[in-house]
């Protein structure tokens, strides 16, 4: 057993959901207990999708276990087909259903559904989310690709490529695809199929028609790309175009495979000039710690050292499948690689290295916050704010611009913070102002420390700076039970209410009378 508070990746069936949700015309029937539907809200809330993921869960309960959960599964599959009429169906088990051994594959086969059915073998107790996504993508594509020879070239004989790897719940996948599609268009290369994001099973059947494949996210597409190489002899573009230099290399690699002139796409990004301008001089040699999925971490390291002039002091990833690539990259920077899925190990490494900037996932953002180190997010897992409304790719030349702004921003903030602290006793700066972007709490000791306390301003002492009546002791105690971020408002409202009603003393009743009065 492994003691876990935070997990960088979900179970493998969540990876399968990411493929099904990314695509059109696919439905996933998942043999799973009641409660596993929680995964739906990753898509509807974090990614803000306006549609339910195309997943039917059998949601068996304890009382079903004594009976026929297999029949439950078949009924769910039948109903799902009748209701959604998918072009292809995925069937599989979640971690609990794996234990009751109902064999969704055999059960689905026996049903003879009138559409292709792909049975997924996702070992929940060995593998994780990215592996589940890669395996699902590969199995589904392999099932649909029944052709042995490429079909006709699409789009009037232009060279064409498949863009492989973007999924639902992928970090910036939506905008990366737009950016890369635009690049290919400038090079005169047609996109045959982009998958899984936006593709149908019928699109997957056409994968063989392209001249070559672009493995945009190796974590998702590597397995399939290798199979397509064997099956159709398609070459694979393996440079991940994150950063200015990597984008140029990507264009060169694509142009060489497609036999086109790369010049058309070499539009410069703003990053080189922004980075050379004197304002960026202070970035030189800033010590940076990088952690995420292997692809994003390796790409970020190159940008950090070669394009921003940082010093890499730590480099790591949480997905063991790509540990070798990460170890090779760490050699380039002469540092020890960190391959772990235990956030406490990451926290210990950051604490030990004391970098000036952390580039990581949502988890590193919180670790950095606790240690009061500036931080930017470069990789999944991420929260809702990293599925932005605005155009925000990581890839291509616009991606390079986004990276520059995103990474430098917390440092400028940090500098501002530092100046404010230096002049803290200056009459114009209030000591109670608190930090502009970091909690003004003392670092809570990290591992094993207590909870991070909320920043406390003068609200802890409600009798300060008031002129609306005196607070009785019990009303004051009550006020402190109100969360700090609305406490100030509650205090002001109560005092205003007391003044208006000519109350000399603020009692508990005054507090709640005011609350009712201002309820909005």
């Amino acid at each position, binding site marked *: 057993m492994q003691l*876990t508070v935070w997990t960088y990746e979900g179970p493998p069936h969540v990876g399968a959901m990411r493929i099904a949700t990314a695509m059109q015309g696919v439905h996933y029937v998942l043999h799973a207990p009641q409660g596993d539907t929680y995964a739906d809200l990753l898509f509807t809330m974090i990614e803000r999708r306006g549609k339910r993921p195309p997943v039917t869960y059998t*949601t068996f309960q304890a009382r079903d276990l004594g009976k026929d959960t297999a029949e439950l599964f078949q009924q769910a599959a039948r109903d799902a087909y009748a209701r959604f009429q998918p072009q292809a169906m995925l069937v599989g088990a979640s971690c609990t259903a794996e234990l009751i051994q109902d064999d969704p594959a055999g059960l689905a086969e026996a049903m003879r559904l009138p559409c292709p059915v792909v049975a997924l073998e996702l070992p929940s107790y060995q593998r994780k989310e990215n592996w589940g996504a890669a395996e699902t993508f590969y199995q589904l594509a392999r099932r649909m690709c029944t052709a042995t020879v490429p079909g006709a070239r699409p789009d009037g004989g232009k060279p064409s490529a498949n863009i492989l790897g973007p999924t639902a719940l992928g970090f910036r996948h939506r905008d990366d695809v737009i950016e890369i599609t635009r690049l290919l268009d400038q090079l005169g290369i047609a996109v045959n199929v982009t998958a899984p994001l936006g593709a149908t099973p019928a699109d997957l059947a056409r994968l063989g028609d392209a001249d070559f494949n672009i493995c945009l996210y190796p974590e998702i597409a590597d397995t399939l790309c290798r199979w397509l190489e064997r099956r159709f002899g398609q070459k694979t573009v393996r440079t991940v175009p994150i950063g200015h230099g990597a984008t140029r290399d990507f264009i060169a690699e694509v142009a060489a495979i497609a036999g086109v002139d790369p010049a058309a796409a070499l539009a410069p990004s703003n990053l080189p000039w922004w980075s050379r301008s004197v304002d960026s001089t202070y970035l030189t040699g800033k010590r940076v710690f990088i952690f995420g999925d292997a692809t994003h971490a390796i790409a970020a390291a190159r940008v950090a050292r070669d394009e921003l002039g940082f010093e890499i002091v730590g480099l790591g990833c949480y997905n063991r499948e790509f540990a070798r690539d990460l170890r090779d990259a760490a050699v380039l920077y002469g540092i020890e690689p960190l391959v772990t899925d235990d956030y406490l190990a990451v926290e210990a490494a950051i604490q030990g290295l004391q970098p000036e900037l952390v580039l990581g996932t949502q988890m590193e953002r919180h670790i950095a916050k606790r240690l009061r180190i500036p931080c930017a997010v470069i990789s999944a897992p991420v929260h809702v704010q990293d599925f932005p409304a605005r155009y925000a790719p990581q890839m291509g030349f616009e991606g390079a611009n986004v990276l520059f702004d995103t990474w430098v921003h917390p440092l400028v903030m940090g500098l501002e913070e530092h100046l404010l602290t230096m002049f803290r006793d200056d009459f114009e700066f209030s000591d109670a102002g608190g930090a502009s972007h970091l909690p003004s709490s003392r670092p809570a000791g990290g591992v094993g420390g207590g909870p991070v306390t909320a920043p406390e301003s003068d609200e802890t002492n409600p009798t300060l700076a008031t002129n609306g009546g005196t607070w009785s002791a019990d009303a004051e105690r009550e006020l402190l039970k109100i969360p700090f971020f609305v406490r100030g408002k509650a205090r002001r409202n109560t005092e205003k209410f007391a003044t208006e009603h000519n109350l000399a003393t603020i009692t508990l009743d005054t507090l709640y009378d005011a609350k009712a009065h201002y309820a909005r």
Partner: protein
Amino acid sequence: MTPAVPATTPGCDAAPVLRERGQREVFCGLTGIIWLHRKVQDAFFLVVGSRTCAHLLQSAAGVMIFAEPRFATAIIEERDLAGMADCNEELDRVVDRLLARRPDIRLLFLVGSCPSEVIKLDLSRAAARLSVKHAGVTKILNYSGSGIETTFTEGEDACLAALAADLPADTTDAPSLMIVGALPDVVEDQFLRLFADLGIGPVHSLPARRANDMPPVGPNTRYLLAQPFLGETARTLEDRGGRRLDALFPFGAEGTTDWLHAAARAFGIDEMHFRSVIAPGRERAKRAIEHSRERLTGKRITFLPDSQLEVPLARFLATEAGMIPVEVGTPYLHRRHLAGELALLPAGTLLSEGQDVDRQLDRVRAAQPDLTVCGLGLANPLEAEGLTTKWAIELVFSPIHGFDQAGDLAELFARPLRRRDVLRV
């Protein structure tokens, strides 16, 4: 002012209930840990389960996971399943490591999950074994929060039932009152003040805020359920001699009045005194509800099953805010505990228990209610279809009980409707 709720036209107490089986879009009982660990300040919740369980807790806990939380998952690995590692030895190792790291923990819950239930890992025996080992420092209890056995708030029920079975015996002859159900501290304090003003005492809460302060229980214990999802806990308390005071649940001015009144009657409090004590709070509640009333009155509302709070909340919205319940879905309908609530629901309300989510959504689309209360997996998709929603989980995480939260409770339902009306995009 009449504190007792008047009998209305026949409500839904005898109405047929639509019982459905099929896909259920609900949380499992593990989710209860998210608020339970905030309530009992020196308790730790260790889930024995899979990566899915850890992932669920993380998704539900949002940012709380990073403040050195008092919950974690012991993830079962292949070695454990293949019998290469002895599950009990592994569990002992994990618990020892955990308690060494967090010596401040006085109460440890081993929480069962679907995987641990299916492989028949006996956590109750493990809890007993470990309790002996850590005796004098940490008490170790067990309950199941698995999806195969519990739905969302039933996780709290299972946890409190485990606590109730373990409470010290009350051997005194004096009656005492127990408030059952984890309430936000601010709400609990309001209730304790009201009981003190009424002259009722001693009053205990289950759960208490600290492991060593858990209340005693015995034949003179009278208890009030603060939450409608505590069937198992109630049964356990009855077995220990406790007696439930039947009342509406304390939502809104009327619900809170009736709930307090049940205690006042049981403790022989003078009627006039009762009225004078609750009058200010009751008036405040009514005034605060008034702010949202205009927007809510006449609006049709559907509840999809989530927490078992649906019936009392529908009653509150119907009787105090003028809303019209269309369908009230609940994961489990406890007829006896909800008898008073059901009687007050407007006749003609469709009651449903359980779920076949696709069929239920077909009913929602056909009925086109003004407001649909549902989980986060359904809220945005329904909004995209043009239906206004209120996400249900907030009703479990926010202070909504009692007089001084009645306005906030009404506002929770009014806000999405107001937003629908103000947006011009």
